[in-house]
């Protein structure tokens, strides 16, 4: 049986503090080289290009409490983006001309202003992606029409499903999650999502259920397509394969199971310099529920804010994309998760 889990925040766990997490990541430099040195010795540095994708994290509230969650999201979290901050995001989009939006959480649909935000982005001709945990669609009657809403606004739906079988999925995401996810995928398919020639894109996100790295994306995608179709008649477009980064609840798992150092060594051994030019932090800008900016959603959860030259955090209400171009990305040892093997990002693996 999967262990039901409370958020680290609710448990008042030491790892709920970002300082404690960063301390663990810092101390592991006795075992593995600091990520910044690793880049230097490969003759690389990590600077942002012009931002292309605005990834909006609308809050940490979620109907699930997955074991590996890097957000430490859950039903008890109260940090959700206000309508005012969303308006600031939209004004930023207007002055920047950026036209790709990626909405995440938590379960973003639980934010009371979520649909308004999607509608506003859609009306600006943005390509809108939404990260959906699937179970939310069947969690309550008021979410049942989400697939219809997504389709109406041409939203690209990116759903988490770590495995094509119940036991492994439920161990990570909670009892009953697999069955509910399959039910939700069927509703999305009925709506036309993942079906040929509908233009409604449905992608799945795979991450390893444990302290191992992901195999090749095309191999796993083939497997997922075959198994999900044979077992449940489900179709989807692409599988995005990602690695677990050693932060938040996944870090807690690594430490509890005594595998933190081993996992870090594994990531470092798999360091692939070819992934660096494609890292998502170079072109994605991440905004937190309170409107502060980050290089990526992981840095957001470690509270590594983008700052101006005097160290003041930058807020979305008070910046232009030009000011962000060329900035040095804030690094720590968790970055090794993005450069391991074929690389890892919100859009899946980075190189073949």
């Amino acid at each position, binding site marked *: 049986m999967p262990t039901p889990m409370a958020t680290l925040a609710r448990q008042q766990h030491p790892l709920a503090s970002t300082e404690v997490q960063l301390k663990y990541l810092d101390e592991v430099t006795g075992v593995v080289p600091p990520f910044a040195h690793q880049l230097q010795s490969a003759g690389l540095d990590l600077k942002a290009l012009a931002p292309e994708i605005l990834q909006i994290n609308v809050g940490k509230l979620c109907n699930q409490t997955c074991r590996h969650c890097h957000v430490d999201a859950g039903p008890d979290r109260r940090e959700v983006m206000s309508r005012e901050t969303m308006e600031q995001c939209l004004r930023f989009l207007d002055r920047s001309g950026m036209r790709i939006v990626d909405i995440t959480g938590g379960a973003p649909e639980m934010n009371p202003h979520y649909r308004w935000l999607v509608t506003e982005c859609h009306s600006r001709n943005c390509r809108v992606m939404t990260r959906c945990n699937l179970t939310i669609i069947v969690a309550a009657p008021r979410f049942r029409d989400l697939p219809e809403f997504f389709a109406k606004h041409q939203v690209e739906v990116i759903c988490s499903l770590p495995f094509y079988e119940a036991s492994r999925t439920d161990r990570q995401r909670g009892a009953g999650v697999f069955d509910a996810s399959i039910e939700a995928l069927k509703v999305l398919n009925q709506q036309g999502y993942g079906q040929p020639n509908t233009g409604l894109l449905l992608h799945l996100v795979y991450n390893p259920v444990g302290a191992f790295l992901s195999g*090749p994306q095309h191999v796993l995608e083939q497997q997922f397509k075959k198994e999900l179709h044979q077992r449940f008649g489900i179709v989807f477009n692409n599988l995005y394969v990602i690695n677990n980064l050693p932060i938040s609840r996944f870090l807690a798992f690594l430490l509890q199971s005594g595998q933190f150092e081993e996992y870090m060594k594994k990531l470092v051994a798999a360091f692939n310099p070819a992934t660096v030019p494609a890292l998502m932090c170079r072109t994605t800008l991440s905004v937190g529920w309170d409107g502060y900016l980050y290089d990526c959603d992981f840095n957001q959860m470690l509270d590594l804010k983008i700052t101006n030259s005097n160290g003041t955090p930058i807020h979305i209400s008070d910046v232009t994309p030009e000011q962000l171009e060329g900035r040095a990305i804030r690094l720590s040892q968790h970055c090794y998760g993005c450069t391991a093997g074929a690389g890892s990002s919100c859009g899946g693996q980075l190189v073949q």
Partner: protein
Amino acid sequence: MKTYYNPDDLARFSEISQYDKELADKFFKWYQEVFAEGALSAREKSLIALAVAHALQCPYCIHAYTEDALAKGYSEEQMMEAVHVAAAIRGGASLVHATQMMNRINQLSIS
């Protein structure tokens, strides 16, 4: 606790080249080619390796190929079935020799 097997030694596999680099280089190159995509996929080869590792009871190979099979998306059920295949061949290989025993019994016994 001291044992003959040390998990850290797996990562030191390449050090076997210290005493004979030429043969070790040949082995590692061949090994890599064996596991590349071919008429069998790298994924299928991983599962064969996992089964053979159990037949040979090599703790290093079991450690490595369990992880590799997970990474390549095999389920627990599929992995256990592969180990049963290895075990069945091992068990069968013992049992089928009983025919030899029976032949010998017949040869030696007054019928």
